[in-house]
């Protein structure tokens, strides 16, 4: 199978859908000749022209609002937010308009739009260009939130997100853009709302998404050599969350660690813990459930401080060992 980067996989998904469906178009800042702040839309202006690769002013509120309006009348816009932090300028159209139009109009409207955004820390971009805001986006009914961890998933999930009749926030991790992985030629899609076991195991379940999946996988592989058997469950879609997969895995392993980069307070790990606590999986637990999340701090600039602000492999490993040995 050919290898592609996460960036190329996202690019390919957009290009293939735009070739297939003329109602799909991309809008955002610097997506044309610049190729997008992260290079994801490189070459697309040449193929599709300025109407379907629509470069916008720096108007995040306007971009997401326009995407919602176009979607309400049958287009399938993809809005690129560049840095995820900038979505905070556009929560009004996302949360008050796009998320609610269908419901408040009695089921008569559909809003098929995607908002792509690059989240996460690790690039020294500091507090206003490094956030993981998934938990905030997930809190509003009517919105779906997707956060792929591999090039394969990124392409398949983005194709599904574009075809989905709802507003979908598609969270790309900026550190993953360069990561390579197997991506088959030709069309495929991955359904939204379905988690995947990325590494099967029997002693403990790690639930995570995005970049924390790669980190958890590295730890799982390392511990395997010692005979410690960790299952890594990649949620892939954060809302709707695949509760069934979480419950099933925890029933099998009896232990749970949730890992995410978003700050702990109000973070979605709490949601996962509540799902398990309120399910039949609770009776199968052999140890307290734990979460390992970003610290409750703005992401700092200095590389050591930045690394300390979010879970690293060593932290994940330490947590797993602690849970397995009942030492917290």
């Amino acid at each position, binding site marked *: 199978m050919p290898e592609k980067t996460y960036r190329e996989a996202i690019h390919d998904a957009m290009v293939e859908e735009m070739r297939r469906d003329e109602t799909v*178009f991309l*809008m955002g800042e610097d997506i044309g000749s610049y190729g997008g702040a992260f290079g994801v839309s490189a070459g697309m202006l040449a193929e599709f022209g300025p*109407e*379907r690769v*629509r470069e*916008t*002013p720096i*108007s995040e*509120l*306007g971009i*997401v*609002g*326009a*995407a*919602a*309006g*176009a*979607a*309400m*009348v*049958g*287009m399938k*816009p993809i809005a690129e937010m560049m840095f995820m932090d900038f979505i905070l300028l556009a929560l*009004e*159209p996302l949360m*008050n*308009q796009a998320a609610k*139009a*269908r*419901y*408040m*109009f*009695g*089921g*008569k*409207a*559909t*809003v*098929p739009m995607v908002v792509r955004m690059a989240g996460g820390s690790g690039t020294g971009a500091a507090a206003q260009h490094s956030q993981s805001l998934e938990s905030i986006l997930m809190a509003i*009914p*009517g919105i*779906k939130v997707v956060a792929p961890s591999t090039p394969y998933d990124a392409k398949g999930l983005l194709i599904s997100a574009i075809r989905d*009749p*709802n507003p979908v926030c598609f969270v790309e991790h900026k550190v993953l853009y360069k990561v390579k992985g197997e991506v088959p030629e030709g069309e495929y899609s991955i359904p939204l709302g379905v988690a995947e076991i990325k590494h099967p195991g029997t002693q403990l379940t790690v639930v995570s998404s995005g970049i924390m999946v790669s980190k958890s996988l590295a730890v799982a592989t390392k511990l395997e050599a010692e005979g410690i058997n960790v299952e890594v469950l990649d949620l892939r879609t954060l809302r709707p969350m695949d509760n069934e997969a979480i419950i099933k895995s925890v029933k099998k392993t009896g232990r749970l660690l949730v890992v995410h980069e978003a700050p702990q307070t109000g973070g979605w790990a709490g949601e996962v813990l509540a799902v398990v606590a309120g399910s039949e999986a609770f009776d199968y637990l052999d140890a307290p459930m734990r979460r390992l999340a970003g610290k409750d701090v703005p992401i700092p600039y200095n590389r050591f401080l930045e690394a300390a602000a979010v879970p690293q492999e060593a932290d994940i490993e330490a947590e797993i060992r602690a849970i397995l040995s009942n030492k917290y």
Partner: protein
Amino acid sequence: MVMWKKEEFDNYQTTDVLETANRLGLEKEKLIEMYRTMMKIRFFEEMADKQYALGKVHGTMHLSAGQEAVAVGSGFAIKKSDYLLNHHRGHGHFIASGADVNKMMAEFLGKDTGYCRGRGGSMHIADVTANNLGANGIVGGGLQLAVGVGIAIQMRKTDQLVLTIFGDGAANEGIFHESLNMAGIWDLPILYLCENNQYGMSANVNRVSAKTPFKARAEAYGIPGYYIDGNDVLAVYEFMKNASEHIRAGKGPVFVEAQTYRYFGHSKSDRNLYRTKEEIEYWKTVEDPIDRFEGLLLQADLLKVEEIKAMQNEINKEIEAAVTFAENSPEPDVKDLTEWVYA
């Protein structure tokens, strides 16, 4: 007392209805229909207010009595195939665009037969299948959606336009500027109608706006702007008609600010502490848009006093029937609470 800046109007006040109608190509039947629709809006709102007083309306509502000329003048100037994005004070515009008052009253009362099956209420009435993309509970909410609708129309190369209506309050929201800038750079088919009723809730437009009229702001984005008498239904019709022709000719967006006045408070919690009784009385007695149009029609002998009476009886019956329809309609089933959160 708040007065309008009549000397700054871009329109001539309609004094001879026959001459104006002739110039605009409006038949007598059309004029009477416009008059009748204004009356229907007024009666609908008075009845809505009554339903509220009787405790039959669960939520709030924003009444537009006094602003009927803006609704009818603009509604009659665009086509059924055009898109409409409305503000929260939208009853008049919906009725002018041909909405079913039964479904409107039912939505008010929160019934399953309402436009939004009781999920939206007065502030969210929409009929997406009829290109009515909804009233909006967020001030300026329609301004951003209009950009996307305009993009869609432009990409499909149809001769539609999107009419986005907002109040004077919305002109001070950030989205106002983002929307006009985008419409300006892409020549989008958007007809901006600023319905200036002089108060954003309690805030007088001149107190909270650095410069009025707002057409200067439109011109700053390269969009032709007009400031007109919003209580002169034929003036509104004329400017909106011209604007729509400009847009359909592919010449880009147009901005029209219609000066008007609302009689009722902002919403049901309003005790009118920010304006005087004399001011409200002035607008009701001297500038009322229905009275003004009625006077012109009578003067031109296009309408007779007894015809008005008959028309009023007919509209009353229609509005009463809407109340009966709403009252006899079922409540939404609670088991359907979470339907339609996702498609």
